[in-house]
C-alpha cells in the first residue's frame, strides 16, 4: 500500500514547507503546520485501514510497514494529540523566533512516531525511533537559554543508550531469526532463552528509557519542563507512549505468546521498577516549585503506573495500561497546555511567583481542575477507571500484593502534588503583577477544552476507550477481552457502575449547589482574596500571603529516607568518574612529537615481542 | 577606695584615652560623662579592649529645663561583672546622635524607640521607619513638652460623666463632708 508512505510523505512535505514558509511569512507557519497535521490525520483515518501492509526493500533489507489494531490504538494518541498540540502551538509559539525550525521539528517528531507505530520490521522501527529522538532533541533545545543545552544532551545520551540497546537487540534478532520482520520473528517462535535472554532485555531497556522507567528517568524532568510546552504535550503525552507501545509489544511477543514460563522474573522486575518509578516520580513532583517540573515528574510517575499495568501481563492489567496510556495523554496533554498557557500569559510558571490566576484565567483553571481530578484518580473522572483497573489487576490477577501498596502510596501522594499544582498557579491570593493577565487566546483554549471534556466523558463511558483497547489487546495476543461501556468488573465478580456514580454525583451536586447558592443569595458577598480574616491586618497591595514555599515540608521531613535515593546524583557521580577515567586516555596524546615517535617504536617492539601471540 | 581597685583601673584607663568626667558610683558600677562625639569611640573601646561586650540598656531622659536630652548607655563586662554607664547629653534643638547599631545589633531597637518617642535622629539607622506608634502626627509623645492628657481629651471622646473625674474624690468629700484619710491623700491627684 502506498498509502502508508504517502502518509509519511505528508508529514515530510509539511516539515519542509513550514521550514521555508517561515522564512517568507512568519504569520502562516503555524497554520500551515496545523493544516498539514490535520490533513495527515484525516488521510490516516480515511484512507488507511487495519490490515494494510506495505512491503519493500531498502538497502538490501526487507521492510514492512503496516497497521494493526495495536498500532491503530496508539495512532489515536499520536495524531489526536498531535492535531491539538499544533492548534495550540499557533498562538503559543507566536512571536518567537525560529518558528520554521520549531514546526519542522515538530512535524518530523510526529512523522517519527507515526513511523514507529506503523513499522513492522525492526530496522524501520529503529530508523523512525531515531528520527523521533533527534527531532525531539531539536525541540528540547529550542528554548534558547543556557541550561537547556546540557539538559538536552542528557536527554540525548539517555535516548542513545536506549536506542543502541535496541539496536544491539535488533542485531541479535537478525542473527537468531535471520529476519528483521517483527511478524516473522514472532512466527518463528520460541527462542533459545539460555543464549538469547538479553534480546528482550535490551529491547525493554530501549523502550523503557523512552518511557522514563526508574533508573533511567533522570533525563525526563528537565527535558519535559524545558521544552516548549506545546511540544511537551506531545513529548510526555505521546512520545513516552512509544516506549509503552514497545514494552507491550516485547512483553506480548517474547514472553506471553511464546515463553510464558520465563515471564515471572521479568514481570517482577518490571513491576517493581514501575512501582518505584511511580513512587520516586511522585515524591519528587511534590517538592517542585516550578509547575512545569512538577508536571514532568508527575508524568514519570504516571508512566510508572502504565509500566506496572503492562508488567502484570494479565488482561485487566494490560487493559489498565492501555487505558492509562490514552488517559495520560489526555490529561497530561491538557495540563502541559495549561502550564504553557500560564507561561505565555504570565511569563513564568514558578509557583512561588504566580498565584490566584483563577479569576484571570477561569477556563484554563477549569481544564486544569478537570485534568487534575482525572490525574488524581478521583471518581467520576477517567483517572479512577485506570486506577481501578490497575488495582484490580494487581490484586485479583497478578498476585503482586505489596506492589499494590507501593502504587497506592504513590497515588495517594499524588493528591499532594495535584493540589499543589492547582493551588500554586490558580488559587491563593492574586499577585499584583498578574492583574493585567488575560485568559489564553481561543485557539489555545479549544484544544485544552477538548481534552478536558474528553477526560470527563471517558470517566462515565470508559467503554469508548475499552473498545479499541480490547481490539489492540487481541492484536497482541490476548484472547477474549471483554468490556462494557460504563461498567467495570473484575474476575471476582465485583462491579462498579460508573454511569450510575456519575449520575448520583451529578444529582447530589445539583441539589447541594442549588441549596447552598440560593440560600441567602442576596446576603452572600463575593470578596477578593486579599480580604482574609487573619488577625485583622489589611494586606498591602504588594503583599501576598499565599503559602508557597516549602509547601510539603512536613511530608518531606517525614519521608526523608525516601529522598535519599537520588538517581540524578548517582548518574552525575557516574558521569564524573567516567570523565576522570577518560582523562587518563586523553593524556596519551601529549602533543609532543618525541612521544609519538616513542609510541611508534614501543608499538613496533611490542608487536615484535608478541608476534607469536598476535598472529597465530 | 581600695575596695574599688578594678573599677578605678577601668576609669583611669578610660580617662587616659578620652576626655571624660567620671566616678565610681558603687561596687562594680562606674559612671562616666562623655561628650556626644566621643560616645561611640568610648563604647568601642570598652567593647573591644576592656571586654564590655554586652549592651545592657540605653535610656533617654528629657531634661527640658536644660534644653537637653540625656542618653545613658549601660554596658557590662561578664567576666569582671563591672558595669559602665556612659552619660551623654545632646541638644534638644538638634536631636541627632551617633548611631551605634553597628556595634551592638540590639541598640537598633532602643534607637528606633528613641527616634519615635523622643524624636532623636540616628543617622544610618537600620529600619528607620514607623516602629511602635502608627501614624503619629504630633510631637513625639515622650518629650516633656507633650501634654498627654490634653492630647487624649482632644483626640479621644470622653464619656460624659467623666469630665471632672479628677476631682471626684474632692467632690465626694465636699458633698458628704467626710475627711480624706491620710493614706488616701498621697493618691489624690491634686
Amino acid at each position: 500500500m502506498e498509502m502508508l508512505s504517502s502518509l509519511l510523505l505528508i508529514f515530510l512535505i509539511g516539515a519542509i514547507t513550514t521550514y521555508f514558509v517561515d522564512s517568507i511569512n512568519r504569520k502562516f507557519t503555524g497554520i500551515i503546520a496545523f493544516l498539514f497535521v490535520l490533513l495527515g490525520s484525516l488521510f490516516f483515518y480515511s484512507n488507511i485501514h487495519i490490515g494494510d501492509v506495505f512491503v519493500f526493500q531498502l538497502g538490501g533489507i526487507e521492510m514492512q510497514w503496516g497497521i494493526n489494531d495495536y498500532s491503530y490504538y496508539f495512532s489515536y494518541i499520536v495524531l489526536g494529540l498531535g492535531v491539538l498540540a499544533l492548534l495550540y502551538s499557533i498562538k503559543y509559539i507566536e512571536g518567537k523566533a525560529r518558528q520554521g525550525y520549531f514546526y519542522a521539528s515538530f512535524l518530523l517528531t510526529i512523522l517519527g512516531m507515526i513511523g514507529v507505530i506503523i513499522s513492522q520490521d525492526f530496522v524501520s522501527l529503529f530508523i523512525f525511533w531515531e528520527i523521533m529522538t533527534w527531532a525531539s532533541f531539536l525541540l528540547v533545545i529550542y528554548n534558547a537559554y543556557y541550561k537547556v543545552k546540557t539538559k538536552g544532551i542528557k536527554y540525548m545520551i539517555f535516548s542513545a543508550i536506549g536506542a543502541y540497546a535496541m539496536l544491539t537487540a535488533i542485531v541479535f534478532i537478525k542473527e537468531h531469526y535471520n529476519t528483521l520482520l517483527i511478524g516473522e520473528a514472532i512466527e518463528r517462535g520460541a527462542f533459545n532463552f539460555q543464549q538469547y535472554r538479553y534480546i528482550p532485555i535490551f529491547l525493554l531497556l530501549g523502550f523503557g528509557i523512552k518511557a522514563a522507567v526508574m533508573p533511567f528517568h533522570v533525563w525526563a524532568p528537565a527535558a519535559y519542563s524545558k521544552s516548549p510546552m506545546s511540544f511537551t504535550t506531545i513529548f510526555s503525552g505521546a512520545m513516552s507512549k512509544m516506549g509503552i507501545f514497545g514494552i507491550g509489544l516485547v512483553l506480548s511477543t517474547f514472553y506471553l505468546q511464546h515463553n510464558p514460563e520465563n515471564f515471572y522474573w521479568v514481570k517482577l522486575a518490571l513491576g517493581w521498577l514501575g512501582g518505584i518509578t511511580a513512587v520516586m516520580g511522585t515524591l519528587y513532583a511534590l517538592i517542585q516549585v516550578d509547575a512545569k517540573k512538577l508536571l514532568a515528574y508527575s508524568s514519570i510517575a504516571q508512566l510508572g503506573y502504565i509500566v506496572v499495568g503492562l508488567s502484570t501481563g494479565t488482561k485487566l492489567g494490560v487493559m489498565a495500561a492501555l487505558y492509562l496510556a490514552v488517559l495520560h495523554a489526555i490529561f497530561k496533554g491538557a495540563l502541559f497546555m495549561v502550564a504553557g498557557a500560564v507561561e505565555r500569559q504570565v511569563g513564568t510558571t514558578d509557583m512561588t511567583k504566580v498565584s490566584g490566576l483563577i479569576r484571570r484565567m477561569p477556563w484554563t483553571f477549569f481544564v486544569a481542575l478537570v485534568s487534575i481530578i482525572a490525574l488524581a484518580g478521583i471518581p467520576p473522572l477517567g483517572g479512577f477507571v485506570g486506577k481501578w483497573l490497575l488495582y484490580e489487576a494487581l490484586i485479583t490477577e497478578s498476585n503482586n500484593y505489596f506492589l499494590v501498596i507501593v502504587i497506592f502510596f504513590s497515588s495517594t501522594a499524588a493528591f499532594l502534588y495535584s493540589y499543589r499544582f492547582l493551588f500554586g498557579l490558580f488559587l491563593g491570593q492574586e499577585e499584583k503583577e498578574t492583574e493585567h493577565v488575560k485568559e489564553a487566546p481561543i485557539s489555545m483554549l479549544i484544544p485544552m477544552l477538548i481534552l478536558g471534556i474528553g477526560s470527563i466523558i471517558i470517566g462515565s463511558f470508559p467503554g469508548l476507550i475499552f473498545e479499541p483497547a480490547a481490539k489492540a489487546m487481541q492484536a497482541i495476543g490476548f484472547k477474549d477481552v471483554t468490556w462494557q461501556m460504563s461498567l467495570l468488573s473484575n474476575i471476582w465478580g465485583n462491579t462498579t457502575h460508573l454511569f450510575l456514580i456519575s449520575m448520583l454525583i451529578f444529582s447530589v451536586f445539583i441539589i447541594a449547589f442549588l441549596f447552598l447558592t440560593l440560600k441567602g443569595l442576596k446576603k452572600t458577598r463575593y470578596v477578593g482574596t486579599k480580604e482574609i480574616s487573619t488577625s485583622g491586618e489589611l494586606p498591602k497591595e504588594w503583599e501576598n500571603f499565599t503559602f508557597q514555599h516549602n509547601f510539603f515540608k512536613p511530608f518531606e521531613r517525614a519521608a526523608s529516607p525516601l529522598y535519599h535515593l537520588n538517581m540524578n546524583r548517582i548518574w552525575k557521580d557516574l558521569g564524573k568518574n567516567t570523565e576522570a577515567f577518560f582523562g587518563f586516555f586523553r593524556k596519551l596524546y601529549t602533543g609532543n612529537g618525541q612521544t609519538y615517535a616513542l609510541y611508534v617504536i614501543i608499538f613496533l617492539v611490542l608487536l615484535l615481542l608478541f608476534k607469536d601471540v598476535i598472529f597465530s | 577606695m581600695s575596695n574599688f581597685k578594678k573599677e578605678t583601673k577601668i576609669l583611669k584607663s578610660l580617662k587616659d584615652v578620652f576626655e571624660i568626667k567620671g566616678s565610681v558610683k558603687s561596687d562594680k558600677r562606674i559612671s562616666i560623662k562623655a561628650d556626644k562625639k566621643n560616645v561611640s569611640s568610648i563604647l568601642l573601646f570598652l567593647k573591644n579592649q576592656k571586654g564590655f561586650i554586652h549592651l545592657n540598656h540605653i535610656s533617654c531622659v528629657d531634661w527640658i529645663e536644660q534644653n537637653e536630652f540625656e542618653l545613658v548607655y549601660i554596658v557590662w563586662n561578664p567576666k569582671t561583672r563591672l558595669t559602665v554607664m556612659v552619660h551623654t547629653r545632646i541638644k534638644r534643638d538638634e536631636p541627632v546622635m551617633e548611631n551605634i547599631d553597628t556595634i551592638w545589633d540590639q541598640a537598633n531597637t532602643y534607637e528606633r524607640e528613641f527616634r519615635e518617642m523622643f524624636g532623636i535622629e540616628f543617622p544610618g539607622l537600620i529600619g528607620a521607619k514607623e516602629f511602635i506608634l502608627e501614624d503619629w502626627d504630633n510631637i513625639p509623645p515622650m518629650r516633656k513638652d507633650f501634654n498627654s492628657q490634653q492630647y487624649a481629651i482632644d483626640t479621644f471622646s470622653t464619656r460624659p460623666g467623666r469630665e471632672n473625674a479628677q476631682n471626684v474624690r474632692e467632690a465626694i468629700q465636699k458633698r458628704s463632708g467626710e475627711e480624706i484619710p491620710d493614706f488616701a491623700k498621697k493618691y489624690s491627684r491634686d
Partner: protein
Amino acid sequence: MVITPVHYIVVPLLAAFAIPLLTKIYKDAARLIPGIVLFYNIIVSFNLLKYVNEHGIISETIAGWQAPWGINLVITPFTGFLASMVSVLGFIIWLYGYRFKRTLKGGLVKYYEILQMMMIAGSIGVIITGDLFNMFVFIEIVGISAYSLTAFYRGRDGAEASFKYLLIGSFASTFLLLGILIIYTQTGTLNMAQIAERMHEVPQHMKIIALIFFLISLGIEAEMFPLNGWAPDAYSQAPSPTSATFAAVVSIAGVYALIRVLFTLFDVPVNNYLMIMGFVTMLVAEIAAISQKDLKRMLAYSSIGQVGLVLIAFGIGSKLAVFGALFLMLNHAVIKSLLFMTGSYFIYNTDNKKLKSLNGIHKRLPLVSFFFSLGALAIVGFPPFAGFWSKFYILIAAGDARHVYLIVGVLGVTIIELTYYLRIVGRIYFAKEEEEPASHKPSINAIIAMSALALFILVIGVYPDLIMQPLNQAADALLNKTHYINQILSLN
C-alpha cells in the same frame, strides 16, 4: 576501453608542471587547472568503474615494463570505487576551496593548488597501483605534499605540526621500505599479485616480520592508534580544505594501503588484531575528542575514531562487514569533508578555533549551521542519514559473527561521539550570544560544494540502494583474492 588508468597519473603530473607556466599567462590558471584536472579524473574514474564492473579487472602496464619491476596500475571494482570516490571528493574540495585565500599572494595560491592536487593524485595513485614499490612512491608523494600543506600558514604551530608529521611520516617510509625489502628478497617480485601468489613460500617468521613493518608503516598512514599522534596536529593546523582532504582522501588511501596489504598480500590471520586495534583507536580517539576545546582538533580526533571503526569492520572480515566498511569509508569521507568545510566557515567568522566562540553562530551563518548539524547527526549515525546505514551494516555483520562485546563497545563509543557532536549543535543553535553580521558569508562555490555533500548524505540516507551495487562489487573484489591474483597474472 576508452580511457586508461594512466591518465590518473599523467594528467595531474603534467598539470602540476604546467601550472607555474600557465600562471604567467593567465593569473587564475593556478586555481582553475586543478579543477579541470580533478574533473577529468572523475570522468576517468566513472568510465573505468563502469567498465570494470561490467568486464572485469583492468591491469595497465606502464611503458611496457613487465612485472616484477614494472609499474602497473590495477583497477578492480574495489580500487575503482575508491578512486572514483577520492576523485569526486577531491573535486568537491577543490570547488569548495576555489576562492580559498585568494587574497594571498599569487605564488602561495599556486603552491597550495599544486600541492593539493598532487596530494589527491598521489592518493589515487596509492589506490590504483598494482605493485608495492609504486605504492611506496605514491605514499611519499602524498606525504610530502601533506607535510608542506600542514605548514602552509608558516606559523609556529603549523611548523610544529608539520615537523611532527614529518617525523612520524619518515618512520612510516622507513618501515614501509624495510617491509618491501623483506618481501622482495623473499619473493623476488614487487607486483602485488605475484607476491600474493608466492607468499605461501615465504618462511613464517620472515612473513610476520614483514607484516609487522607493514602494519607499523601503513598503520601510521591509516591513523591507527598509537601511531596517529601526528594526525590531530596536522588536521588542525592545515588549511581547512586540506584538513578535509586529509579526512576524505588521505586517510582513505592509508586505510586502503593497509587493507590491500593485509588482505591480498598476506595470508596471516590479522582479524583479531584489526578489531582490537580498531576498537582501541576508536575508543581513545573519541575519548580524546570529547575533551577538546578546539573545533578542528575535535573533528580530527573524530576522524581517527571513524577510521578505527573502519578497521573494526575490515577486521570482522565477512562480506557484509567489508561492505559496511566501504560504505563507512564513503560516508566518512563525505560527512567529514562537510564538517571540515562548515567548521572552517565557523572559524573564519569567529577568528577563533575555540568551541566557545560557536555560541549562537547560527544567527550569522544559518545555512552553514544547518549543514554542520546535518553532518553531525549523520556522522553519529542517526537515521535517516547516510551514516546510519554503514554503521548498521557493520553492526549486523558483527552480530552475525557473534561479537557481542564489540557491538556493545562500538555503540558505547558512539554515545561518546554523540555527546560531543550534539554539544556543538547545541552551542551553534542555542546559547545566546550578541548578534553580529557574518563577516565571511559562504561563497557560492562553497555553498554548491557543501550542498552537494549534504544532498548526498540525505539521499543516500533515505535511499541507500543507489550505491549498493558498486559497493557490493567492490567488497566482492576485495574479498575474492584468488580472482584478483589470477586476473592480474593472466592479464600481464
